[in-house]
């Protein structure tokens, strides 16, 4: 470690249920077999990553009333697969994404605290809030929560979980059978939390876990989301991958911390990032082109456009020009379960106009436009170039590290681990050995 240099944190994101993940590559393995999870988690641990990250989606995506079958689909339960990974890893943090809307605080807090015990202090939680009625159809309560209430529920959920995790004192953690009785006023584990969205009481059976509380990331980007993170989270899974946008976001969020009596180092900014490596920069760029074409097939491009146009565009040629009809604003939204589609539909007419203008100006077909807009990798180059870029982002306060999303399962991180990490270590910005044993220690959090 070099004095004065900011240290980088790295997370490995298991390739997701979306078109970033290239399943058609000959190297692409299973997305559901445990062996794939083992491979990626062990690769990340070999490279001394801070944590292994899993996204969540509690309903299969649909398009025009039918299951969306072009992308990878099928995933395990996050908590369960991470508990199993704790058996085949030793140090790396284990971070599930979990929505506060359709989980219940007692069950979740209990499983997370159990994971923390069973992994020796490596549990995390990436908190997301949603109010997605489509997903609600898979749960007892159905679509019960209004969009504006999602952070009300989220905040209470976290406070309830914290109350459960704090319901045993540190010294109650282990019982010495010989020592036995201790006369407390309040029995350990007793809890009660009352709020407008969460009202629970009972006994928490899990003694205080090794980290006290699991490490909490947050992934919302609205003003409410940023405040929420500044108040509760240990880190943010951000979407601001470029240097300039990253610096603005970084400054914005870190400035919010003082309101809650917190310091800048109490909240880490970790943008999601994709990468393509080659022996030379030129080779990497060529490869990146190829990856983008694989990520966006013709049917993909049409479906992407349908998310905005909200009408059947199957008669259009993906290699031809954009539709001249306007988006359908009156019908129900065709794409369900896609965050991308939700954000696109907010101002469909203006967005469609922008896309048409860009396609005309640059002479792009439908597919080329979709590739240009959606499939741009964050870091492309030789290992030396990528290492330098990553370091630049961290040293310029655009972020504190990255959540890296490989596009191939399960081997997509192999080359990064072998070729980029040693260069980061040489630069003195990334650990060569784990110094602590818990995730909180890896991240330098109190």
């Amino acid at each position, binding site marked *: 470690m070099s004095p004065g240099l900011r240290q980088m944190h790295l997370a490995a994101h298991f390739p997701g249920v979306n078109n970033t993940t290239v*399943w*058609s590559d000959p190297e692409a393995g299973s997305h*559901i*077999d*445990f062996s794939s999870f083992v491979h990626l988690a062990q690769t990340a641990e070999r490279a001394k990553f801070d944590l292994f990250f899993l996204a969540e*989606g509690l*309903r*299969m995506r649909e398009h025009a*009333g*039918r*299951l969306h*079958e*072009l992308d990878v*689909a*099928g995933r*395990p*339960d996050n*908590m*369960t*697969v991470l*508990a*199993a990974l*704790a*058996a085949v890893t030793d140090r790396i943090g284990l971070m599930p994404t979990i929505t506060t809307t*359709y*989980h*219940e605080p*007692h*069950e979740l807090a*209990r499983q997370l605290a*159990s994971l923390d*015990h*069973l*992994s020796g202090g490596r549990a995390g939680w990436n908190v997301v809030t949603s109010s997605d009625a489509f997903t609600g*159809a*898979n*749960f*007892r309560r159905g679509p019960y929560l209004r969009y504006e209430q999602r952070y009300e529920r989220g905040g209470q959920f976290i406070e309830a979980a914290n109350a459960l995790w704090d319901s*045993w004192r540190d010294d109650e*953690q*282990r*019982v*010495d*059978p010989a020592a*036995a009785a*201790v006369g407390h006023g309040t*029995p*350990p*584990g007793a809890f009660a939390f009352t709020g407008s969205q969460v*009202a*629970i*009481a*009972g*006994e928490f*059976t*899990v*003694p205080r876990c090794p980290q006290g509380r699991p490490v909490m990331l947050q992934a919302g980007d609205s003003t409410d989301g940023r405040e929420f993170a500044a108040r509760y989270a240990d880190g943010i899974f951000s979407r601001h991958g470029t240097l300039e946008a990253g610096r603005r976001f970084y400054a914005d969020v870190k400035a919010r911390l003082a309101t809650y009596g917190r310091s800048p180092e109490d909240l880490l900014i970790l943008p999601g990032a994709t990468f393509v490596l080659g022996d030379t920069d030129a080779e990497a760029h060529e490869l990146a082109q190829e990856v983008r074409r694989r990520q966006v*097939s*013709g*049917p993909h491009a049409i479906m992407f456009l349908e998310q905005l146009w909200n009408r059947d565009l199957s008669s259009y040629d993906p290699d031809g020009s954009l539709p001249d009809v306007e988006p359908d604003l009156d019908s129900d939204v065709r794409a369900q379960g896609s965050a991308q589609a939700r954000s696109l539909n907010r101002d469909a007419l203006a967005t469609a106009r922008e896309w048409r203008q860009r396609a005309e100006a640059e002479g792009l077909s439908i597919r080329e436009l979709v590739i240009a807009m959606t499939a741009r990798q964050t870091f492309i180059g030789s290992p030396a170039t990528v290492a330098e870029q990553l370091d630049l982002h961290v040293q310029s306060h655009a972020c504190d590290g990255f959540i890296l999303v490989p596009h191939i399962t399960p081997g997509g991180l192999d080359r990064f681990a072998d070729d980029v990490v040693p260069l980061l270590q040489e630069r003195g910005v990334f650990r060569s050995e784990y110094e602590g044993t818990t995730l909180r220690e890896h991240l330098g959090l109190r």
Partner: protein
Amino acid sequence: MFRTPQLHLAVALESAGWHPAAWREPQARDADPLSARHWVEQVREAERGLLDFVTIEDRRRLHSGTATTPGPAPRARGRLDAIMIAARVAPHTEGVGIVAAAGTTLTEPFLLSTQIATLDFVSRGRAGWLAQVPTSPRDAAYVGPRSVPAGDARFDEPAEHIDVVRGLWDSWEDDAEIRDAVTHRFFDRGRVHHIDHEGRHFAITGPSITPRPPQGQPVIAVRGGSGPAAALASSQADVIIAAPKGLALDRIHAALAAAGREPADVRVLADVVAFLDRDRSAATERKDRLDGLEDTRDRSDAAVYTGTALELADQVMAWHELGYSGVALRPGAVPHDLQAITRGLVPELVRRGVFRRRYEADTLRGLLGLARPENRFGSGERVAVRDAAR
């Protein structure tokens, strides 16, 4: 020629053992049910004994016993979530089935189904769910303002919960993933199904986010030999665990018949707490000593056996003759009684030629002699018709 069916053996793992005072035994000094090591050791010991499966027990409340002797009072002991424990131990084993306890009343069937399916993936086909039912109405407070059914009605919601879980396990057909390079389709939506469950207690659309697990349907076990629990067990369970008392087996067979099921489709295991020592009096003395620390005489819903492993072998064979598929033993205290089972009882049953010498199957259904079920959604025609109708 009459052929004795395979004998099945399971153990139920509960903290330091089933006796509430077990943690006060000198041997329990190293037992730390909050550590992964504790559970890995117990489950490996069970695997060493070639047992069909272990159950990882769970409860949402802390143990609160009352001391019957002066001196150190029993105190609350911590307990981890059983599904997390089950997943944590799975990669350390390769033969034994791992059955995690979880309730129906307080859980979301969608999440529960994906958790048990995932346990089946990480154990490569050795997962089961011990579905726990009788939740006290006051436990509703664990999930906020919601009522928990009381009386016989409390077995009605669990039956529907299990229906939903089973439906979700089938919602992907085994060959749904096609990776078709020509049409760019990763899976075939004709082979992935909405379950569209609309019942009295749930409306769940599906499909699952998790593909069909290796066993198709992971094993569901239910404890209950009488009353409404027995009705639930006989309609839903692959494995019924019941105290071998009186006419329990006859009642179970009658309930199975009433539910339209064949006895051959279900394994019925005798539910027995075991205190095993080198002679009967040592076992009895040990149990008495534990009872002196905390009285259990009125508490156990299982039969209680105190004696030697050899005598227990006779008893196990007698239950088997009677028609039980085997026994699910609850070690009074671990590691003592667990080791007496795996290193005393099992070798004796093997010597008598009634128990396996090696694992003969690589899934829990296989060990139990249960077939991998067909998928209820069949060949995908149903959804093809639905799509065509749009």
